[in-house]
């Protein structure tokens, strides 16, 4: 009691710790999520915010107006949980939760944040150019679920009724293949863009399909390399490829460092990789691969990379002849190592080179799948494996670290055994060993 007494008397003669709040404004801490600020101009009316709002505090109202419609978003602050999800999901940054907490009103109408923007009617709908690789990213990002993509049949379709023309998919497309085009049917992979395709968004729809007949080929070449095809064709390294016989395409490449640990296969979202530990084979289904490069990140040995290689050309007779413009055979000259990013293969570069590309490249060539050769053995005889020196103290740390459970250490009997069939040579045990008793080397016995 007496310490409290002392404190009480101390307090009596010290300044109160009370904020002089209503008299002096008091700001909230940074990143406080307060009143919603809504910038109608930035809004693209995608409706993601409405979707993610758990209390359903956001409503949209569309009123027809001349030449389009007025779109009004209302954020009811008396219903909001201020979770900030709408802000996170807003791709255009139209929604922002400010640090203003003064949300007090006698009239609840004062607690509704709203904004209206005019959205001109878009003449056409969403269209896809031949750059499309059917990766399904657009379908997955579509807030309205208006896009359906079938990789197998290479079918891309948009439901115009559902599409709200938010444009999110355009941003998501790795190949820049989407645009608001004319109102016609979406171009299929087989049918190149219609010549009269008008682009409202030049950035998003990079392919000037009408301006030149030729340039349409360039994107198609990209497409061709990844399009599904029944035949498998031989691959050769890019520097050795004969441009006459081979298309130079981009894809995942595997180096000799591969230990066939299967991690890449497990990480592949498209299940395009098959790795057989026993047979020490690494296979990629290039028609499935979307070049997301997750396998690169996953590989413990950094054995994978993106590179260009030659892909044996398709026989010309498979090529469907474009209906409108007979394509002059072109030859690709310069940009053999096309980066993974799509814009690199944009018309600017593709156009001048279009002439050089042989006509075959314009067709949707059947994709190829390559089977990598077995890894050449590192040593003269026997496979590579974990080796143990006499420094081992049988501490079992290596066994504990082994992801595959292939190490067994018996402290009492002082034995160290390894199941070489299970070992993926990931090297964790080597790193874990406190005595540096383990190493990677050729197994001789």
């Amino acid at each position, binding site marked *: *009691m007496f310490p*409290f*007494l002392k*404190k*009480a*008397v101390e*307090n*009596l003669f*010290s300044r*109160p*710790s*009370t904020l002089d709040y209503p008299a002096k404004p008091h700001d909230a801490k940074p990143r406080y999520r307060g009143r919603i600020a809504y910038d109608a101009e930035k809004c693209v009316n995608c409706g993601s915010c409405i979707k993610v709002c758990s209390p359903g505090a956001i409503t949209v109202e569309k009123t027809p107006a001349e030449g389009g419609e007025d779109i009004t978003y209302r954020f009811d602050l008396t219903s909001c949980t201020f979770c900030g999800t709408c802000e996170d999901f807003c791709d255009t940054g139209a929604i922002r939760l400010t640090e203003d907490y003064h949300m007090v009103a006698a009239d609840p109408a004062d607690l509704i944040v709203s904004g209206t923007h005019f959205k001109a009617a878009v003449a056409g709908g969403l269209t896809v150019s031949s750059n499309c690789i059917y990766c399904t990213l657009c379908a997955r990002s579509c807030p309205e679920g208006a896009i359906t993509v079938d990789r197998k049949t290479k079918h891309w379709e948009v439901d115009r009724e559902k599409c709200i023309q938010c444009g999110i998919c355009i941003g998501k497309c790795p190949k820049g293949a989407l645009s608001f085009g004319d109102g016609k049917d979406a171009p299929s992979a087989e049918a190149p863009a219609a010549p009269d395709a008008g682009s409202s968004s030049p950035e998003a729809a990079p392919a000037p399909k009408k301006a030149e007949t030729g340039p349409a080929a360039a994107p198609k070449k990209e497409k061709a390399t990844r399009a599904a095809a029944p035949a498998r064709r031989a691959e050769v390294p890019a520097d050795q490829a004969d441009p006459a016989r081979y298309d130079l395409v981009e894809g995942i490449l595997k180096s000799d460092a591969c230990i066939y640990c299967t991690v890449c296969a497990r990480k592949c979202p498209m299940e395009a990789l098959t790795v057989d530990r026993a047979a020490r084979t690494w296979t990629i289904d290039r028609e499935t691969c979307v070049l997301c490069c997750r396998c690169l990140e996953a590989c413990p040995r950094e054995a994978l990379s993106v590179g260009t290689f030659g892909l044996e050309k398709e026989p010309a007779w498979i090529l469907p002849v474009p209906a409108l413009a007979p394509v002059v055979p072109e030859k690709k000259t310069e940009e053999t190592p096309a980066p993974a990013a799509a814009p690199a293969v944009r018309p600017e570069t593709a156009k001048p080179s279009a002439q050089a590309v042989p006509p075959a490249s314009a067709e949707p060539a059947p994709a190829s799948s390559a089977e990598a050769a077995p890894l050449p053995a590192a040593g003269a005889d026997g496979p590579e494996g974990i080796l143990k020196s006499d420094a081992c103290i049988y501490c079992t740390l290596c066994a504990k670290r082994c992801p595959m459970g292939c190490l067994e250490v018996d402290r009492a009997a002082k034995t160290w055994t390894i199941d070489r069939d299970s070992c993926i040579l990931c090297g964790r045990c080597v790193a874990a060993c406190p005595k540096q008793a383990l190493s990677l080397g050729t197994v001789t016995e």
Partner: protein
Amino acid sequence: MELILKALGTLFSVLIYPGFLFVSAVGLLLAGFDRKVLARMQKRVGPPLLQPAYDFFKLLGKETLVPSRANKAVFLAAPVIGTASLAVMMLFLPIFGRAPLSLRADLIVILYLLTIPAVALILGGSASGSPFAGIGISREMVVMMAYELPLILVFLAVARKTGGSELCFSLERIVAWQAEHGPLLFHWAMIPAALAMLFVIPAEVGTQPFDAAEAETEICEGPLIEYSGAPLGLFKLNTAIKMFLMTALFCTLFLGGSGVTVTLGPIWLGAALSALLNTLILLALCLAVTLLCMTLVHAVTARLKIEHLFRFYWTVVAGLALISLILVWLGL
């Protein structure tokens, strides 16, 4: 004519000074002071000094609801009786240079008159018919039983000290004795009694930690639960007046009571000045006592359970008073 003047004078002293109006004003001021200082002890800014007055006037402007299960007459009369008896009691304390009726009641009477407001509160709560109030009145009564023992011991110690071998319950005589021998607080045998009295005051007034009867967090303010509007305001006023009354009683018993007597300049001016000065000094003393026994204790303690409260008063506080009584009895 003289009779009328006298009657008017009495009426003035009953209703205005030092009667009802004055007591209410000072009581509310004391309560405000208590709240303010308490807040400052908790490092808060605290309400304005006039906050209890605002509370009181606000309550006058509210509806008064009488619950259907309540006995209306008792329910409404209880707070009025309580306030009136407190206001009248003020006249029996010789704490001002001007104490018209202090000859008319002695310590024992004061002891019993003090129970009337508590009984009024109990009856009002009981009449409201609420079970919460039932618990509240039970606690209020136990609190009363708890502080009555130390209080009577303190009174007897004072009476023995000032009266010697004569019966002396008269407040006037106690004050006169102190004028001669110095305030009782400075007689060391009386210090335990003064301490005990300091503990009795918060229980009598019903402030934390001795407010088990009106614990708003457990039993929704106990006896007051069904009160609203003006009657509630009167009960709040009662508490405020009690605060003043008890501190003033402490001043009378232990600090010499009637303050100073100064004569300055012309007689009438001197009388007026000394009355003013007396009042101011008394007020200062009351503030000090309030600070010491209510605010400080409130700031550093939590509410006691009722059985602990009872035990505390019958052991520690009564013990203190008893020590004083025995010391005084031994002639110290």
